[in-house]
């Protein structure tokens, strides 16, 4: 569908284009079977590694343009993790693809069984703006490893990254099976109208619902990586310096708090709070210097909408006078300095939504056990953190806090460990990925049962008699004695 704006003809990606795209991919994914071949998958994965190596500079520049993201964050948390994911997939792919033998029992005797991983077919991946490369390519790696054709829709809120992704994918990957569609709401809507075999969405709950509603029309299964308020409980009697460093690394060190697994708020006791705040201040200064508003080691706020949103949280009269550190803002440069708020009320704005920014509220409790009520009264977060040396508290936290993932004595690192599933629960999402979990997320586990023609039990067939019923009960019950008894009794009524 092309429209004319002024003298220029502008091609818009609408329903027609989306339909055509999906049809093209169906031919590739189903008829040609190209994406299912092991060598195709390996080639694409190797090309992704090459793509990352070759384009490091460009990626860092795009991230700087979109988010003023420090080079190290871009190189490590995005490219580094992407390459790692590829390497894990390349190393393990043969194992992942191999069918899994399943034990069979008396009820299907004689038989053999296996579970075969087959690709879903064509997959739509909608990614987010805060880690535009990681959250685009990591799922794509899973989809490719599982043998699917993929369409990636990067976030328009990170435009430089989005257009770089489109350029790089076209350059390095098989464009007949892996496509990038750039755009905003109209393009995404056009894509969501189509029938996909699986959709993965990373973002917020509001748009997540729109995606799931669209998927419901075609009975398309979805993975949703959403967010939530990730709490960090800080107990006393810990190595406070190390704890605060790790907290800072997980909060401001991750895109200046704009990350789904950043610790959102702190829960600590009234008694411990002053020590905690002092330690935080000391370490923050050590990391980011005196002029933190302009620190090159901190990302900026992504756009003016989010800047306004965060400002509003600070302007809330319920938190006036609670700012104990930071609070500086620069609207023109879209920068907010690391800000700590102490003793915020639970009904303040800042405690009612995911912050997704460099503001850290600290809630003060009478004793640390009260944190469970606070956490459980909210929706289930993507991650929950606790800093403690108290074994009982640790175990209680781990067992009773429901979250996507839990880290004890650190923050966010579970993102980097590919042997644990990464995903949410409840409002923080459904499904998980990373490592083999990515492969599984994009595979249909097809049960295959092989039976022979021998061993046909006439008692399965009508006409149904009392004898058949007794034999069947005995066989299904698995008790040899019962089988003998039934046989002995025969067809006597």
């Amino acid at each position, binding site marked *: 569908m092309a429209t004319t704006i002024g003298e220029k003809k502008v091609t818009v990606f609408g329903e027609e284009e989306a339909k055509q795209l999906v049809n093209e991919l169906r031919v590739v994914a189903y008829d040609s*079977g190209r994406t299912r071949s092991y060598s195709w998958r390996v080639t694409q994965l190797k090309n992704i590694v090459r793509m990352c190596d070759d384009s490091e500079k460009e990626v860092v520049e795009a991230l700087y343009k979109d988010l003023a993201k420090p*080079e*190290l964050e871009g*190189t*490590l948390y995005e490219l*580094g993790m992407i390459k*790692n994911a590829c*390497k894990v997939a390349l190393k393990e792919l043969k194992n992942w693809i191999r069918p899994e033998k399943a034990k*069979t029992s008396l*009820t299907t005797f004689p*038989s053999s069984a296996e*579970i075969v991983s*087959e690709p*879903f077919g064509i997959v739509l991946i909608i990614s987010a703006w805060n880690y535009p490369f990681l959250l685009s390519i990591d799922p794509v790696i899973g989809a490719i490893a599982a043998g699917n054709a993929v369409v990636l829709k990067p976030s328009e809120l990170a435009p430089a990254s989005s257009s770089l992704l489109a350029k790089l994918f076209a350059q390095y990957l098989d464009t007949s099976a892996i496509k990038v569609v750039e755009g905003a709401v109209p393009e995404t809507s056009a894509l969501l109208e189509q029938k996909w*075999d699986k959709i993965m969405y990373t973002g917020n*709950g509001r748009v997540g*619902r729109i995606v*799931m*509603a669209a998927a*419901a029309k075609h*009975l398309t299964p979805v993975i949703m990586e*959403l967010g939530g308020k990730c709490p960090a409980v800080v107990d006393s009697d810990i190595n406070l310096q*190390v704890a605060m*460093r790790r907290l*800072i690394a997980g909060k401001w*060190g991750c895109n200046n708090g704009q990350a789904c697994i950043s610790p959102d708020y702190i829960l600590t006791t009234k008694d411990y709070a002053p020590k905690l705040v002092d330690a935080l201040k000391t370490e923050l200064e050590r*990391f980011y210097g005196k002029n933190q508003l302009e620190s090159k*080691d901190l990302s900026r706020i992504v756009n003016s909408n989010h800047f306004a949103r965060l400002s509003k949280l600070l302007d809330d009269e319920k938190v006036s006078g609670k700012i104990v550190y930071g609070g500086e803002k620069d609207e023109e440069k879209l920068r907010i300095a690391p800000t700590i708020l102490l003793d915020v009320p639970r009904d303040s704005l800042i405690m009612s939504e995911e912050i997704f920014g460099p503001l850290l509220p600290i809630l003060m409790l009478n004793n640390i056990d009260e944190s469970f009520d606070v956490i459980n009264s909210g929706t289930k977060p993507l991650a929950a953190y606790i800093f403690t040396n108290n074994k009982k508290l*640790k175990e209680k936290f781990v067992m009773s806090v*429901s*979250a*996507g993932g839990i880290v*004890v*004595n*650190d923050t966010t690192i579970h993102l980097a*460990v590919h042997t*644990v*599933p990464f995903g949410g629960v*409840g409002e923080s999402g*459904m*499904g*998980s990925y990373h490592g083999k979990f990515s492969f599984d997320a994009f595979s249909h*586990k*097809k*049960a*295959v*049962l*092989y*039976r022979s023609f021998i061993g*046909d039990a006439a008692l*399965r*067939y*009508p*006409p*149904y008699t009392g004898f*058949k*019923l007794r034999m*069947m009960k005995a066989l*299904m*019950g698995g008790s040899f004695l019962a089988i003998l008894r039934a046989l002995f009794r025969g067809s006597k009524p």
Partner: protein
Amino acid sequence: MARYDVKTLGSDLEDMRDYFRSGKTKDWEWRNAQLKGLLSFLKQNEAQIFQALKDDLGKPQVEAYRDEIGTLVKSVRFAVKELKGWMSSKGAKMPKVALLTSGEVVPEPLGLVLIISSWNFPFGVSLEPLIGAIAAGNTMVLKPSELAPACASVLANVLPTYLDKKGVRIIQGGPEVGEKLLQQKWDKIFFTGSVRVGKLVMAAAVEHLTPVVLELGGKCPAVLDSLAPWPMKVAINRILVSKFGTCGGQACIAVDYVLVEKRLASSLVELIKVLVKDMFGEKPRESNSLTRIISKQHFSRLKSLLNDPEVKASVVYGGSMDEEHLFIEPTIILDPPLNSQIMTEEVFGPLLPIITLEKIEDSINFINARPKPLALYAFTKNQSFSKRILSETSSGSVVFNDANIQYCADTLPFGGIGESGIGSYHGKYSFDTFSHYKAILRRSYFTDFWYRFPPWNYRKLLLFEATYHFDYITLLLVILGLKRSRYRC
């Protein structure tokens, strides 16, 4: 028919959520007790269950045992045996770099779940998911189908006496009750039924971002290759019992239609006639081996499938119907038009279309041109054809040389794909589907890599890179100052 009073729904569910929060249902003791209670229910009420199935569906006892009571007893015992193992946490390997970090994955219950079941296996598809929900430690509401009222009544009135009513609730009612239930907030919804209602369920789940499992249906094809006489007889018997001998064909995994080579068609039809007579006698209605049609509505639906003149002309066996008794005799149709309703929608009844092809290999394209089925059955001894079927078609499951029997396997995931469904269950898969697998990482306070923290410089970048690649040599060299950063220093 008894109906639940939806006015109290909100507070009833809140009570259940409180009960879940108390942690009682997480204990192994509770879960084990509920499972044992289920087992007792099944064993002590066999006669009542048989009677209820007879009342609602005219289901023969052998079918009732084979497909419902027997499989349930098997599944409960399997769950009881495996439960501790399922509940245990699994350690996750950490890279060496993550010194003194331990990782594990722990299953936890989702909370309060909703199970909506269908009428064709009213006990089976109600209680199989229930086993999983209980094993995973949830609280749950089961809404059995109102189209099988006698069974729903046994479930709502007898079963609760064996279970903890605070944690497991059975709610009876029709579509209005179903609708009201779907408006509530659940931690998971497990639905067995039609595609049409499945879409409504998933749409309703969007409001609360509730994950769903949908066990739907589809047209399960049986690909029948040429076989020697004896295996052919076995194959046909298995197809016939899958269709006519399983709830009268009203089963999501019943063989829907058969694909066979043209040249074999006439001998196949003759053989089928003989074998159907062996199974159901000259007067099938008096054989006591056939389930009747569930309702007048479904009867009319099936009647209209056959009333299509071109379909009627293709009937080669059977075709007689008794509306008063909701009985349709086993009916075989040879090559009905492919665009007739009987070939475009799920039959779900005792009508078996046989579609002929030039070559049996054409069945692959035939199947792929249609929505992905819940199960695909292939009767063949040709290894390369088997491999092609496996890799070139997509379905929930594939069974070679038999049908329906995958339902009994505790170690195979049972579920659909595409229009035949989302998610799977049975055995450990039931436990998994009602669990959240939570990742837990524990770190000590020692061993932090100083380069983990800002201010950033290029040396730290290189160190990190080496760490990520588990490149311990480079790590050491950089630390010792023996390797220069590839970045500006």
